[in-house]
């Protein structure tokens, strides 16, 4: 392959994708399920776990498909569709495997899997990986970090929303409105992490 990959320190990339450039708080990816599910702490845990697992696996599979099938065949223009199919296939297989292996885990994780096929964070991570030409290790590290970052963000938000419920909120802001403001403050907090990591 005469493809020039971009390599950077995987540890820096890992922490940068969790904290400084959290895929949700700075790239706004995965908002739909984020807002509707974060009402409940337990569901947030399950969905966050599912996103992390699916994101890491799909990034690895997509990387292989991208550089061993799509690029050699010159089918880059079809890559979006191929990625969606990879995500759907991984989700389907994972659902079957978990169902067979552990019914208990299926109850906490499996029910969120169908939600994930259309979660923009997963496709987003893969598209970022493609456009930034990450090598295999970078892709997996970036996807795992992004997934963990998403998980962290939804857990924090679920905890905060639990407290907001007991407080008076203007009627027009109830629900989505106050949640948006909360996410905004979280995003400001996460920007503060940017001094933490030197990307070089």
């Amino acid at each position, binding site marked *: 392959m005469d493809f020039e990959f971009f390599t950077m320190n995987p540890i820096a990339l890992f922490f940068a994708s969790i904290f400084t450039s959290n895929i949700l*708080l*700075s*790239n*706004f*990816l*995965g*908002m*739909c399920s984020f*807002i*509707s599910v974060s009402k409940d702490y337990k569901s947030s845990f399950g969905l966050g776990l599912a996103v992390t697992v699916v994101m890491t696996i799909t990034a690895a599979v997509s990387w292989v498909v991208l550089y061993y099938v799509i690029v050699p065949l010159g089918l880059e*223009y*079809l890559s*979006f*569709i191929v990625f*969606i199919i990879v995500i*759907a296939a991984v989700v389907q297989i994972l659902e079957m495997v978990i169902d067979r292996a552990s019914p208990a885990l299926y109850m906490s994780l499996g029910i969120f899997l169908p939600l994930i096929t*259309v*979660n*923009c*964070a997963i*496709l*987003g991570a893969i*598209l*970022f990986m*493609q*456009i930034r030409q990450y090598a295999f290790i970078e892709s997996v590290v970036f996807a795992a970090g992004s997934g963990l970052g998403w998980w962290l963000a939804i857990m924090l938000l679920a905890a905060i929303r639990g407290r907001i419920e007991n407080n008076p909120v*203007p*009627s*027009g*802001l109830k629900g*989505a*409105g*106050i949640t*948006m*403001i909360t*996410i*905004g*403050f979280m*995003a*400001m907090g996460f*920007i503060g992490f940017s001094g933490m990591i030197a990307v070089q």
Partner: protein
Amino acid sequence: MSAKPGKILMDNLWFNNPVLIQVLGICSTLAVTNNVRNTLVMTVGVSLATAFSGWTLSLMKDLIPRKVRMIVQVLVISFYVILIDILLRAYLPEASRQLGPYVGLIITNCIIMGRAEAFAAANRPLISFWDGLTSGLGYMAVLVAIALVREILGFGSVLGFRLMPEGFVPWTIMITAPSAFFLVAMVMWLARNLQARREAAAKAAKAAPKPAAGPSPAKA
């Protein structure tokens, strides 16, 4: 079909606005709302993709087997989004370069999937096209409004024209992510308050003995 084009327009633009009321589909575009031009390109893309995929899926709806319905929907949506990506790369290379991965993310925009499932699956092609287009316009209206505020306060200019006086100090927060969340919340608050007030007024008018003067708002 009972749905009237005018009512669909009002519903999608205001009473059931995809962003403000349904809180759908902001993921793919919010990240580029610090620039009005990029926001316009993205939201026009979303509108066209929603309209055409609604039209196509409505045309095909009697032929699609139930088992593969979801995958066919995703296929049709991806088809239009890839088409948009190809056209952008050929005719607006600059915008295509700046938007990077965000064009592809239109595929996962929940509005498109939502309209395909909720409207196009049960309606005629032309009205599905109209429904998709107006949903996209409702989406565009909110995001372009946010982009205007962010670009004016963050850069002091809009579409390259300088609006703010020379001494204006740009608000850095408007360029960064948190401001988008705050602005979405503010627009939501405004919209919900206005709608609540109109609803209250409509109720009061109904309770009063004489008939209401203006056209009565929807009771959704």
